[in-house]
């Protein structure tokens, strides 16, 4: 479903802030795979997701979604294949627009925006049903401005928006990191529910090793702009945090104490 072939990306080339963020990255995802992505700060996790989403162009390499080469497609055109939830709860929704308006925008992802009505009566009923899945009572506040919602509510809403039209690929960039533990657990639970129900091909970045093991059917670890550990199936199910830490030490050649600080 997703193929990343030998992708390189350097930020601020030729300056003192030069940073090689993706360093010969290769990855292939099969349809329905749910991959958790871990790695230290600066390992290239978010950069990988942004490269796939097309936030900027890559220096070299190819990115394919299904059979489509999207390497040179602008961000808004790739959006027809991709659902995204960001780390910052402010980033995924339009604060000054209503809950139902945000959903209506998401429902039109990948479709031409015409002069037809921006939201119809039939849609409202559908959104009401969809919002019930989140179990946050948002179905009773559909005309409230999104800016009035809490961070957790906004993330849950963004998740629903990302999956309202079934995406070929769901990208979750530490989407629970900015939330308190209880809310994070609830959003993660909703994530699991929605991914399972729609059999979505998913990449989820997390800083939480336990979450990385507990969720999904494949786990990759990044270091220095490429993938250093890739486990799936039974092997992944039986992983422990300790094993993961030692795998990380082997891959990065650093001490475990640092890893705990970085990977938490």
């Amino acid at each position, binding site marked *: 479903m997703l193929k990343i072939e030998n992708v390189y990306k350097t930020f601020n080339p030729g300056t003192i802030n030069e940073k090689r963020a993706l360093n010969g990255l290769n990855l292939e995802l099969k349809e329905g795979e749910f991959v958790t992505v871990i790695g230290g700060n600066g390992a290239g996790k978010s950069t990988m997701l942004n490269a796939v989403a097309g936030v900027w162009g890559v220096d070299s390499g190819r990115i394919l979604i299904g059979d489509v080469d999207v390497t040179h497609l*602008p961000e*808004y055109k790739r959006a027809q294949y991709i659902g995204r939830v960001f780390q910052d709860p402010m980033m995924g*929704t*339009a604060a*000054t*627009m209503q809950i139902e*308006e945000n959903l209506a*925008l998401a429902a039109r992802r990948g479709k031409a*925006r015409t*002069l037809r009505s921006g939201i119809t009566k039939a849609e409202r009923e559908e959104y009401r049903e969809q919002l019930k899945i989140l179990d946050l009572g948002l179905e009773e506040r559909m005309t409230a401005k999104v800016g009035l919602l809490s961070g957790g509510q906004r993330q849950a809403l963004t998740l629903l928006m990302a999956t309202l039209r079934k995406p070929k690929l769901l990208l979750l960039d530490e989407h629970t990191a900015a939330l308190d533990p209880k809310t994070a657990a609830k959003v993660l639970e909703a994530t699991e529910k929605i991914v399972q129900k729609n059999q979505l091909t998913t990449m989820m970045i997390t800083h939480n090793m336990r979450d990385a093991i507990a969720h999904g059917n494949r786990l990759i670890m990044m270091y220095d702009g490429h993938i250093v550990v890739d486990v799936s199936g039974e092997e992944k199910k039986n992983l422990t945090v300790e094993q993961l830490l030692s795998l990380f030490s082997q891959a990065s050649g650093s001490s475990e104490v640092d890893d705990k600080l970085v990977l938490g």
Partner: protein
Amino acid sequence: MDFIGALLSSMPGAIAQGLIWGVMAIGVYITYRVLDVADLTVDGSLCTGGAVCVILTLNGVPMPAAILAAFAAGLLAGMVTGLLHTSCGIPAILAGILTQLALYSINLHIMGWGTDNGSKSNLPVSVDKYDLWVSSRHVRALTAENPFLILIPVLIIVIALLYWFFGTETGCALRATGANGNMARAQGINTNFAKVLGLMISNGLVALAGAFLSQYQGFSDINMGRGAIVIGLAAVIIGEVMFSKVFRNFALKLLACAIGAVMYYIVIQFVLKLGLSTDDLKLLTALVVAMFLAIPYWQGIRAQKTVKGGKGHA
């Protein structure tokens, strides 16, 4: 009593001017509030609208066509700013300034069309010779020629069309672009297209206001748009200060801009009658707008201090 009499007799003119500038203020609202861009093109495109309308009228073009052409010229001006911003990567505010500057020359040539040196800074159009839709001459007349009979329906039509448009898929995409560009792109919205479209609509409305303004005052002038952005902002802000608590609906928010423009011209008449020189009007306008922009900021700071200081200091 003299003062009140003079003030009252100036009111119809002030309100008529306010309604014309209300259309302009609605254009400013679209860029400044909906799109979150301060667009300075309007200082040029207001005159462009006036110049196009007058030159076409003088050359025998029927008024509806002249007004439509003025609107189209505004669309074009907005498109230039939009493309400078999105396709050339120039910051929006600078893109607007560039277009505005270029329009100065273009406006001179529009008004000088057909003359020997092809350039003119002022172009009169007499209500006696031409069938103008609005004129300050009839502003106190209780006849069918009274400009309010045109201006009020025009304003209602503009607001109704915009209310419809911003409820469509395209209009919602435009609002999302202004509210959160990241989110808009992630939802497949071409934010560059949306920005260009927004700037076009905004400047189209500003040029439309210019077309009515030049008829109303009986001429178009190269300086008629100078400081227009500030007057537009003043109208938007006055409207918000007065009505933000009561007007929640989008159509009413647009109406608030128009009422804001009317209020602005009423206040201007008031201070003029108090003896202020017209030369000082722009200074006064700038001060008023600066103050209204600063007050919410100061209130924000005070609110923060109150939270930090706890109950005792509140």
